[in-house]
């Protein structure tokens, strides 16, 4: 199972040369283990609504999820222990620097905004605002921002409302224009 790890380790700059450290590998490993632990617990909790035994007719509905949850929690503990054993080496390894974190957040938060705005504003307006904002913010100028946003809206409108007959969510603006 190495195909992904190969690419991510090969990527330069992950260790953040010159970038002020924010998150060590050790910290991220422990966060990861915690997330898995929580996931496992949730799965077990859900499985306990059902019979988790093994009857004459084989496993019951809760059996598989229950044991999956148990295995996930055990694996999470093992991963955390392994990480803590190598805590010195992993603690020195920086997986996220401050600049990198800022760049990532600056990319992630607008996506979250896009997702949050999609239902109240409609996807067309939300994507227009998102694209306009992103292109402006990266300094491509007003013209590029407008062209990108409008082109995306028009293309998707034609493609989804007419060709694919697969309407995307619309909001108050479309209703006002009588298009919703």
């Amino acid at each position: 199972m190495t195909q992904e790890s190969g690419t991510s380790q090969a990527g330069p700059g992950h260790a953040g040369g010159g970038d002020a450290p924010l998150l060590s590998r050790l910290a991220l490993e422990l966060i990861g283990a915690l997330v898995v632990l929580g996931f496992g617990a949730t799965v077990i909790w859900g499985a306990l609504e059902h019979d988790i035994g093994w009857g004459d007719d084989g496993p019951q509905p809760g059996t598989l999820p229950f044991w999956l949850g148990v295995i996930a929690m055990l694996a999470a503990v093992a991963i955390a222990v392994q990480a803590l054993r190598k805590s010195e080496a992993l603690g020195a390894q920086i997986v996220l620097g401050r600049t990198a974190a800022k760049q990532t957040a600056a990319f992630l938060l607008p996506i979250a905004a896009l997702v949050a705005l999609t239902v109240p504003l409609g996807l067309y307006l939300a994507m227009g605002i998102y694209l306009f904002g992103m292109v402006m913010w990266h300094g491509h100028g007003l013209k590029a921002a407008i062209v990108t946003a409008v082109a995306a809206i028009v293309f998707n409108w034609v493609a989804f409302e007419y060709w694919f007959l697969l309407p995307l969510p619309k909001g108050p603006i479309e209703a006002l224009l009588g298009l919703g």
Partner: protein
Amino acid sequence: MRLSAAALGAAFGLATAVSIAAPAAAQSTWRPSKPVEFVVSSGPGGGTDTFARTVQSIIAKYELLPVSVIVSNKGGGSGAEGFVYGRLAERDPHKLIFGTNNEWLLPLVAKVAWKPSDLTPVAAMAFDEFAIWVKADSPYKTAAEYVAALRAGQPAEFRMGGSQSKDTDEILARMVERAIGIRFTYVPFRGGAEVGVQLAGGHIHSNVNNPSESIGGWRGGQVRPVCIFAPQRLPATAPVRDGVGWGDIPTCAEQGINITEYRMPRTVFLPPRVPENVAAYYAEVMKKVFDTPEWKEFTERTLQTARFLGAEEMRALMTKEEAASRALFQDLGWLVN
């Protein structure tokens, strides 16, 4: 689950009464103003999907709606996805939900986010029949012989397949168990086609598929029906295989399995709380669809009984079936609500 003839008769009486009483003015005022979404509570290729798309094709051919129709499949959770989607679209007059009796049966056996009375009934347009099928080269010539073999052998080694669990197929299987007083093994699969192939391969001993689900297998000499769950034999058809046609298949009651009637309605619903004139408008459209030769051809080809129920008859049917099923499910220990 049984639709007694009396109840239906009463329902029909109601229907005529309602159609006379319905104020004509209310029906004509409303028209859809944007594309209507047909929400199909099954995956593509399923019986409900074919039902909805046939309605769509007839509406398109006769231009029965002034707007276009969009079909979307929401078959997750045995159709629960589609009904939940419909319930959440409260007051939306541009969504029709296509389903079966699972709209009122599923909430009894699974924790789902709607009550049978939530959605607005529009119409039921056809009733699908059920038959007991065996493998073509099975030693049991008739249903009676099959039941005799069940009695003589080890019933647990006799496997009846069906589509899904605690759904129409398993309900019927359990009713058969009660009718003959023997418990056999029920194996749930994903859908009717899969069950048909399992039978053709000899991995199960029988199933209760709808005629349309297994007619290809019958013609191809893989499986054959031994009895049909109807009060009387189906109308005679051209021979399907070896000179035997649908009219020659005995009813299950004739064969000593005392279930006189078991049918699955093909139903259309609107979201909750839509105005009455909207429901009336769609009921009228569905009635027009029902009256076309194409609908007749479709129901005949798929061996369904064409019978139209309006909203009131549907409510009567739902109340009656729900009460009957509740008692049965209580016995079987399936009830969750």
